[in-house]
């Protein structure tokens, strides 16, 4: 028997840069992450923080002419960075399955949904047409689609949003991948459907023991599903810990600010917390010093590290920069 290692993915010093007017700008800047079997790793952050860039880098789906990827993404000894396309095509869809945000847009409008799922099997298995059809029906049952035979022949526009996302999930898990990357899988869905889809992902994981990377901006979704959480800001991971720690005992100013701006409190008369300024665009991202410093100007510069590093402040809890030690919200300080 082959012993399976628990470590599925080991990302080290990943830099992914996009070319803008002739120059490369890192959208993911020195990212270090690991994904283990049976783990849901959530990467959370606001738009433009680089979370989707990480997904694209792992699965190798980026515009090769205008993107520069360096560092290592190790999957079982194999480095996915710079892997040639034909080898990568053997891994994509087979070992790594991907679920996207907008289920209607991610399905080909002119193909029957069953055939779109079967297409994955065509490229990764020896099944004949009949076997593929049977497997698709089996998958449709697994993802909870009613009347699978009928569904097989439907076109994407004939299905509801929740059913479409189930098709996309069926497609991603068709070959029982070890790694599933879900990029905002429920953002386009209603809350009740969102709950069902997240439950489904958990069920799939329990059965297949795969590792899931869940990319989302929704802290609620993270709290409900994730095991490990990486918080990203401006291309960098600013805090990483298990889910309980991140929500009960967040340290980085950005994590704390984000949690504070959620409309969750019972005191409706109070203003929501607003993070000053705006998320910097890729081109204007500060490349030196603490990238979040500009958003918390009341914290003196001396509190920040000159070149902020990620520190393990307690076992398994990583925080970038040391500014968290004396961080306070502005309102608290001025006594408003």
């Amino acid at each position, binding site marked *: 028997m082959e012993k399976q290692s628990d470590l599925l993915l080991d990302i080290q010093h990943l830099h992914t840069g996009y070319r803008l007017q002739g120059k490369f700008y890192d959208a993911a800047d020195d990212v270090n992450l690991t994904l283990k079997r049976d783990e849901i790793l959530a990467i959370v952050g606001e738009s433009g923080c680089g979370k989707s860039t990480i997904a694209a880098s792992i699965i190798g789906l980026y515009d090769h002419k205008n993107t520069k990827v360096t560092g290592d993404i190790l999957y079982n000894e194999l480095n996915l960075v710079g892997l040639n396309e034909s080898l990568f095509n053997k891994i994509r869809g087979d070992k790594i*399955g991907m679920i*996207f945000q907008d289920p209607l847009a*991610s*399905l*080909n409008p*002119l193909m029957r949904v069953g055939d779109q799922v079967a*297409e994955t099997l065509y490229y990764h298995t020896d099944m004949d047409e009949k076997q593929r059809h049977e497997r698709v029906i089996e998958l449709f049952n697994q993802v909870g689609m009613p009347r699978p035979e009928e569904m097989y022949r439907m076109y994407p526009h004939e299905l509801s949003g929740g059913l479409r996302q189930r098709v996309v999930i069926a497609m991603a898990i068709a070959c029982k991948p070890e790694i599933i990357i879900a990029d905002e899988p429920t953002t386009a869905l209603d809350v009740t459907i969102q709950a069902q889809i997240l439950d489904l992902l958990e069920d799939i994981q329990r059965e297949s023991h795969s590792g899931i990377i869940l990319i989302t901006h929704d802290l609620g979704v993270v709290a409900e599903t994730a095991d490990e959480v990486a918080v990203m800001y401006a291309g960098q991971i600013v805090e990483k810990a298990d889910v309980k720690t991140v929500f009960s005992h967040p340290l980085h100013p950005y994590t704390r600010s984000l949690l504070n701006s959620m409309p969750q409190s019972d005191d409706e008369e109070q203003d929501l917390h607003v993070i000053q300024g705006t998320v910097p665009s890729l081109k204007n991202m500060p490349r030196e010093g603490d990238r979040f410093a500009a958003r918390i100007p009341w914290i003196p510069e001396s509190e920040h590290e000159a070149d902020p590093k990620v520190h393990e402040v307690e076992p398994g809890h990583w925080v970038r920069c040391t500014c968290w030690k004396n961080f306070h919200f502005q309102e608290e300080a001025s006594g408003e």
Partner: protein
Amino acid sequence: MWKTILRRLLIMIPQLLILSLLVFVLAKMMPGDPFTGQINPNMDAKTIAHLKQELGLNDPVWVQYTRWVGDLFHGNLGQSYTQHVSVLSLISDRAVNTFWLSLLTTILTYALAIPMGISAGRHQDEWQDQTIQIFNYFTFAIPGFVFYILGLWLFGFTLGWFPISGSVSASAHGFWGVVGSRLYHMILPAILYALITTTSIVQYLRTGIVDNKVEDYVRTARSKGVPENVVFNKHILRNSMLPIAAFMGTTITGLLGGSMIIETVFSYPGMGKLFLDSISQRDYSTLTALILLFGILTLIGNLLSDIIMSLIDPRIRVK
């Protein structure tokens, strides 16, 4: 499906009725009547008045209209004012020529446009695309008749590679001889005409490919491990062909109706040339018949487009 087609055909009835009314009113408003230009010593005013009465030209307008429509149903399009033959036989002779020219042009158009569009879309902003774009700007900007005349002058007169007028050589004999001669006469106008009509198809295809390339479902296909050339042919290209297929019906009938310039330049005896000739010769009975015919062709073209579209796009397929 057949229900939709049938319903569309039924909708065409009122459309045809309106078309016939318009054509009739147009014909009535045109100056002159069948006797214009025929006044000579043998035809005095009295005789003409008598003939007019006999032909019903003094009847109320609606009586004339219903009679005209009734005649249409019997295939009676009237007499040509100038050629002294029935309009029907005049048109049907020419229609055959135009049909063959349009068919050849259609084939050449798609044979040129599809590879050009694919190449431009696939290699967006690279030299292939830029070359095709320059060509497209040229064919788009240059007026058709200038382009045709230039082609005629260069390949017909100067180089003498192709005949410069007519549809078939008088000396051609035997089946293959006639076919060969017809082809020989058609090839230059068809190529020139096709080059002009490719423009929009190339643009549609290029834009379709460029747009579809970045669609999410293409990314999904790649994430499944589908090889890049299959992603292109099966996903991107197929979906980009949609608008072209949709315009096929109107393109074909458009070619039939729009051939007047090329036919005139090449003195090719087709319907388009007949149309222009009947304008210049004030042959109103032929003219009205042709307008009616072109109108009907347009309606059929739209119907064809709708049918093709509903056959290939499941999103608008009617259950």
